[in-house]
């Protein structure tokens, strides 16, 4: 048999390479990951237009978007924006097609949960209340009257 001259940690190339599970002191954290890392998704709901492009492109149907007419005609009120991480394959297509750039990959990777239902991340604003609806209607009327004044 070949006498194998492997040396115990001699030289830089033969050091231990194991990294413990990321803990903030000894090893890599989420911040050390490359900038393009595709971690858990996050939607900044204020910028989201509810265009549903992400829902259409998703290869595994893990995004569910529901919207209602919002205060601004160009932008709808996103009532439901659920990302089901139990189905997500982190392909990044949804982020690519997002026109307003509200959907982004964070660098978070700790996605473990005790229950499958915990894996669904909800970013929606919830259904529009009657109070909001009357307020928007009032505002729109005011805006129209302003325009008429001008």
């Amino acid at each position, binding site marked *: 048999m070949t006498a194998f001259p*492997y040396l115990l940690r001699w030289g830089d190339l033969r050091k231990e390479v*194991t990294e*413990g599970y990321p803990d903030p002191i000894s090893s890599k954290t989420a911040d050390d990951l490359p900038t393009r890392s595709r971690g858990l998704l996050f939607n900044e709901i204020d910028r989201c237009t509810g265009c549903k492009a992400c829902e259409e492109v998703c290869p595994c149907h893990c995004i569910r978007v529901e919207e209602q007419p919002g205060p601004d005609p160009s932008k709808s009120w996103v009532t439901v924006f659920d990302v089901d991480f139990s189905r997500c394959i982190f392909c990044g297509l949804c982020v690519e097609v997002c026109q307003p750039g509200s959907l982004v990959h964070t660098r978070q990777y700790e996605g473990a949960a005790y229950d499958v239902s915990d894996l669904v991340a909800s970013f929606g604003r919830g259904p529009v209340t009657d109070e909001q609806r009357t307020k928007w209607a009032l505002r729109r009327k005011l805006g129209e009257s302003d325009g008429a004044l001008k």
Partner: protein
Amino acid sequence: MISAENSWIVAWGEAFGLPEGVPHWIYSAAALIFIFCFVIVPCGGLMSYFERKLSADLQARVGPNRAGPAGILQPIADLLKLLQKEARSEWNWKESLWLSVHTMALFSTLAVLPLGSMALLVNTEMSVFLPFWSALVLALGTMLLGLSQNSVPGWFGGIRVAAQTLAGSFPALISLLCTGVRSGSFRWSALAESQGFSPWDWTVVANPFQLVAFCVFVVSGLVLLAIAPLDGGLSMSDIHGGVSSHLYGMRLSLFRFGRFYGFFFWSVITVVLFLGAWDLPSQLVIPLRMGGAGRLLAFIELAWLLIKTFALMLLIIWIAKVNSRSRVDQITDFAWKVLSPFSLAALVGASLCAGWRAF
């Protein structure tokens, strides 16, 4: 069969509060239990820790580091974890029977295990050969254990182990004779006395034939007891560890510990036969013995023996970790066609050397 040098047992017996006049068999039974609990079991734990750390170092890993400082408590954690395993519902009485036969055969060698000049329970002309009896029973036990498991890995594993044992025992026995030729006796004490503390007084360097005999003895021991890297019968990749594939929990730990013990006692015997046994420099031994510090001497001898044993075991583990596992047919071929002729040649050579010296 209890040797005359068992005074230390009596001393221990007194220390444990055994009244005087207790029959010798109680003393020896107590001694066996004492050796098992306070020598073999800690050695098993230590060795498994060393093995894991060594292989981690070799493999650019960290190894155990969570349980205790530097992971030293890992063996205990492992044991506790194995004990927690849930029992399987069906009870295979054949498997239990053969596992207990196998285990008893293995630990019966404790009685002949040489652990120092004052810890020789059985010290006769035959004592060197007694471990072989146990190794053969062990192989039989393992084979029947495998056959009783009703699974293909068990069958193949058991039969492979048996084939290896048969192939390995012949060269091992022959090379064993070489040491007896040199010391003129097969008593443990005589074998130890023919050597000395300095490496130049060890049997292994006495003449080239003894070196050959040493190599043959170590390798055929690996074949005989199916120890890595010559452990085709327990191969993980094709038959899932052979006999051990159907053992679990308590039984698995018993089986694993048995395998460790086989390896351990083979290394101890190798050290005693070839690597200077427990011999310490006479400047150290005589004052201690004269000064009545027999117990301290026994302890130092044991420690020195164990250090050498561990070094040998770690060397073998190192080789096993780096090299690939050999195939069973290649192992048996190797044992019959290579090891056996070499052991015979070594025996002839060693006899000639011994005869030369006698004239």
